[in-house]
């Protein structure tokens, strides 16, 4: 159930180049579906910012914010103790049950798209699915969540475009080079990466897409995308779509 809640910013920590981890305390009851997002109100900015939930424990919400413009820069410069108004529980989230029990799930992230994979990994592991995480970054300094995903029980493969860490190339190269197999995949990242992943992987899967949003609450139809099943709101029927729904 989507609703507005007030959280307290408790910590802002750098995790990679221009990438910050925000820890927020507040009521997280019923909000912990992996792949959902929150709309964060930034003081002095008109629209809220859509940010995917990285991790969620009782009373504690973790967000990863990549500084893209003035709004996100202001968000990560807020002092701990600042109250933040969040629209919570937005979007459909990932479908854990789509991976058959005791089967292999591959979770694939590119750049800041790695953020929602942590909660996804934890929930897949809790549901007894095996998890291989494939993380793509431009360079070594951009890497984040590698250790956290390992700690959560995933086999982690890193790819960097410049070869400064892990396999050289994109996530699709790493999957090919390491002959990674899975029964179902989940992906989040830039659109060209999602397209390449969907074209390369034969197995079924789902991807979390990103669009510029107005309300994030299903009201304004600012983020409607075309799917094979007709127009759908990224913020409401998405942001996660089945591979076969997407129109490239």
């Amino acid at each position, binding site marked *: 159930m*989507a*609703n*507005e809640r007030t959280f307290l910013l408790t910590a802002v920590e750098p995790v990679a180049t221009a990438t910050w981890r925000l820890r927020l305390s507040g009521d997280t009851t019923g909000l912990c579906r992996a792949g959902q997002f929150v709309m964060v*109100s930034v003081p002095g*900015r*008109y*629209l*809220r910012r859509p940010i995917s939930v990285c991790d969620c424990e009782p009373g504690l919400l973790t967000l990863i914010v990549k500084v893209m413009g003035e*709004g996100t820069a202001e968000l990560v410069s807020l002092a701990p103790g600042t109250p933040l108004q969040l*629209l919570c529980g937005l979007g459909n989230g990932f479908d854990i049950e789509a991976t058959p029990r005791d089967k292999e799930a591959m979770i694939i992230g590119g750049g800041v798209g790695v953020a929602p994979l942590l909660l996804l990994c934890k929930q897949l592991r809790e549901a007894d699915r095996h998890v291989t995480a494939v993380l793509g970054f431009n360079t070594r300094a951009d890497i984040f969540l590698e250790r956290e995903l390992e700690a959560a029980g995933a086999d982690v493969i890193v790819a960097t475009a410049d070869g400064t860490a892990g396999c050289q190339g994109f996530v699709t190269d790493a999957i090919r080079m390491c002959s990674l197999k899975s029964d179902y995949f989940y992906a989040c990242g830039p659109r060209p990466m999602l397209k390449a992943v969907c074209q390369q992987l034969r197995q079924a899967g789902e991807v979390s897409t990103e*669009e*510029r*949003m*107005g*309300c994030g*609450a*299903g*009201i*304004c*139809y*600012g*983020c*409607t*995308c*075309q799917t094979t099943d007709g*127009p759908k709101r990224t913020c*409401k029927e998405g942001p996660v779509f089945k591979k076969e729904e997407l129109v490239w």
Partner: protein
Amino acid sequence: MVDLSVNLGGIPLDNPIIPASGTCGFGLELNEWYDINILGAISLKGTTREARFGNALPRIAECRQGLINSVGLENPGIEKLLAEKIPALRAIYRKPIIANISGFCVEDFAFCAERAEGCADIDILEANVSCPNVHGGGMALGTDPKVAAEVTRAVKKASSKPVFVKLTPNVTDITAIARACEEAGADGLTVINTLLGMRIDIRTRKPVVAASTGGFSGPAVFPIALRAVWQVARACRIPVMGCGGVSTAEEVIEMMMAGASAVQVGSANLVDPMACKRIIEQLPEVMERLGLKDLKQLKIN
């Protein structure tokens, strides 16, 4: 106890607050956030003769104190509005429904009005001659007094329902359009739709919205909307629904003092889905502070 009720051209409303077309979907979208029966009325998303996907993405650009949208009248078409959207809304909502209709030529408006005529659940028709996001129609129809009057006459001819014409501020003299619509038989006017605006991403050197330009709305346009409402209310005798940048109960009262009979709240819903609820809850307190017992006959001295 203060009295929040108003009369919108013969239609009694429990309060003057109406979420503006395009900022509340077809009602159910907003009802997920609160019980929309607290509203004065609701103005549904602009509907055209045929279904429309709307403009390419991105459709949203943030601005200081507002946003640009270029949604481009995404809607399922008039038939689906009547067969699915309105019955679904009516099943949970008892207050007046304003159906916002749009088109690319006079005949489109007449067609939608004629189809809507058979729908008893529609209380008011709002003819949108002011959408800045569709080419070859929409706003172009609302920038010429003769054409705006022609649309008004066609809709009035096709329908026995009260007809409000929603005006664009992107004209030299809004009162000329307003008077033309009044003379053509409009029962009321909605003032104003969005202002044509633009943003450019200075890194990519591309317009932020794919359609290049879009409709600018939000708190920044409130003074412009207020001025337009004031001008139109003085120039015409028919009721005006004030619209543009309203986000507080104080601004609702200010808009009514400028001559609005009811007030539409737009962009505020996109920042805070509970905006209309909060405004309705704040109104009594603000009225008491101002010594107002009701919202009728608010005027400037």
